[in-house]
């Protein structure tokens, strides 16, 4: 067992950035995730590992600093919250279009617009359907605990470099701000410049190695036939990810008549709802998507063959429910229950919604 600490989600993930051997963090303050950069600067990672931490002049600049460093094969990360992530969408689309690996954290808050600073899950569409322009995808991980915040960093970088893709860790103000016990892993070594050159010399901008062609990182292709071919290449990559990288967790689904589908903070509340329902003799289970994209659509389709109904529970006006419905494809009843704008549902409210919308409905 590793070292145990009591930490906020935002602090745990900042510690994970250092221990993962990340080369650079570029960010801009925004509530409710400012602790990430505050923790990093207080920890002096430049002394601990040589990691660069730089406060940018805007989220626009931060994502483009990330883009620049990601072009060089370095491990780079930024964090923000909803309005800041909106501002980053241009860079996110360029990153997708030039296939460089990097990791982002969105500690989601209520919206739209400036909204509020309370937890929400209303950025699902932006994260999963593509907030920027063009046909692109990004892997989206949804932590549901402070431990997940820590553990998802290593997973995110593994996937980012495996597929040369942006991986978004989609948290929210609840998981970012609350304190829980977290097990801290070993310090990983940062790769040396030489190791980076050996591993990524086929694409990374490290200075033209004598004997090789110059490397170019661009999202531009003026020949539309070639651009279509590039898009086909991207779609094939996304199909491979959708096939291989789906992650989800289940609770009491074996004998379930009804399934709650919920991720992140909502899934924590739904755990309690499952217990309350079981006490009442209702066979209710929980499916928690860990990857929001790729979505566990095959598993949901399988479950739809034998359960009577599903309730998508989100801190939004109903976003993930569209993907649940697509996966279920009309076979059983699917409804949405949400609190939003920074409000969080109680386990009792969820049970009542299940009883009125699905069981009795």
């Amino acid at each position: 067992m590793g070292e145990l600490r009591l930490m906020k989600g935002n602090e745990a993930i900042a510690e994970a950035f250092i221990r993962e051997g990340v080369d650079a963090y570029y960010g801009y303050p925004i509530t409710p995730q400012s602790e990430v950069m505050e923790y990093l600067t207080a920890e002096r990672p430049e002394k601990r590992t040589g990691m660069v931490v730089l406060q940018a002049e805007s989220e626009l600049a931060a994502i483009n600093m990330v883009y620049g460093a990601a072009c060089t094969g370095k491990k780079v990360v930024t964090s923000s919250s909803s309005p800041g992530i909106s501002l980053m969408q241009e860079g996110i689309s360029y990153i997708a279009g030039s296939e460089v690996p990097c990791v982002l954290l969105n500690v989601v808050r209520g919206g739209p617009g400036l909204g509020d600073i309370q937890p929400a899950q209303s950025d699902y569409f932006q994260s999963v359907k593509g907030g920027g322009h063009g046909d692109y995808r990004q892997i989206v991980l949804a932590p549901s605990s402070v431990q997940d915040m820590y553990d998802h960093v290593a997973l995110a970088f593994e996937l980012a470099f495996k597929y040369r893709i942006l991986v978004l860790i989609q948290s929210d103000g609840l998981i970012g701000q609350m304190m829980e016990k977290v097990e801290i892993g070993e310090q990983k070594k940062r790769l040396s410049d030489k190791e980076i050159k050996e591993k990524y010399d086929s694409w990374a901008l490290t200075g033209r190695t004598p004997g090789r062609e110059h490397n170019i990182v661009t999202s531009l292709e003026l020949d539309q036939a070639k651009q279509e071919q590039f898009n086909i290449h991207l779609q094939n990559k996304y199909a491979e990810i959708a096939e291989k990288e789906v992650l989800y967790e289940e609770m009491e689904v074996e004998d379930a008549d009804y399934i709650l589908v919920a991720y992140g903070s909502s899934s924590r509340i739904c755990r309690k709802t499952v217990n309350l329902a079981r006490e009442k003799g209702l066979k209710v289970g929980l499916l928690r998507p860990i990857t929001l994209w790729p979505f566990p659509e095959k598993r949901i389709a399988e479950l739809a063959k034998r359960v009577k109904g599903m309730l998508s529970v989100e801190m939004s006006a109903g976003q993930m429910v569209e993907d649940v419905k697509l996966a279920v494809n009309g076979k059983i009843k699917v409804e949405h229950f949400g609190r939003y704008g920074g409000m969080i549902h109680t386990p009792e409210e969820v049970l009542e919604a299940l009883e009125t919308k699905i069981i009795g409905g």
Partner: protein
Amino acid sequence: MADIKIEDIIKSENLVFKKTKLFTDKPLSYCPGCGHGVAHRLILEVIEEMGIESETIGVAPVGCSVLAYEFMNIDMAQAPHGRAPAMATGIKRVYPEKYVFTYQGDGDLAAIGTSETIHACNRGDNMTIIFINNGIYGMTGGQMAPTTLEGMVSSTTPFGRDIELMGHPIKMTELVAQLPGTCYVARHAVHTPAAVRKAKKAIRKAFEKQKEKKGLSFVEIVSNCNSGWKMTPVDSNKWMEEHMFPYYPLGEIKEI
């Protein structure tokens, strides 16, 4: 008449000019008469002469020079419009020993990317910005730029730039020279052999400053845009001397 063969003429002792090996063999996409080609050559010659081609990373954003990576045989990134300084900061901070430069036009550097430019200069990021100022958006067909002169006709100021409506042309180079983060700031041109020699010297100095780790080095090159200005190359250079240079005077502005 003596029979002269081509081999008798092309001898190493007769060689007065050759293409730097850091140019790729792709034909330049710039309009004939435009200053971009010469500016590219000067940067590449400096990199070759300093022997730093395997240590240099360039960033070129949206604009006429968005395809600079096609011509420059060094590792290069293409940046979103205005964001080249931020990308270059991202690169330089993780590779402090490499040479990093951006190559930006006036719309890019002085309009959409003003914030990124000012803040990179203010932080004193140890890199070089090459700023091509031709007073117009060339790539998109000659619209008004922040550096378009008063009264100058463009496709979005068909009756000339009206200062009351659009404000004054911005002097970014003087502006960044005010910031303690910049170590070398100069403005040159590439329209005559003498100007080219001075511009090359400035670019060399800008790259040398990176070696000395003194801060951000910034070289503006005032250029013509004969297509956008709807003039012949010769006329556009004359117009540039008569109108651009008085407002954007050439010379060394700051050196630390």
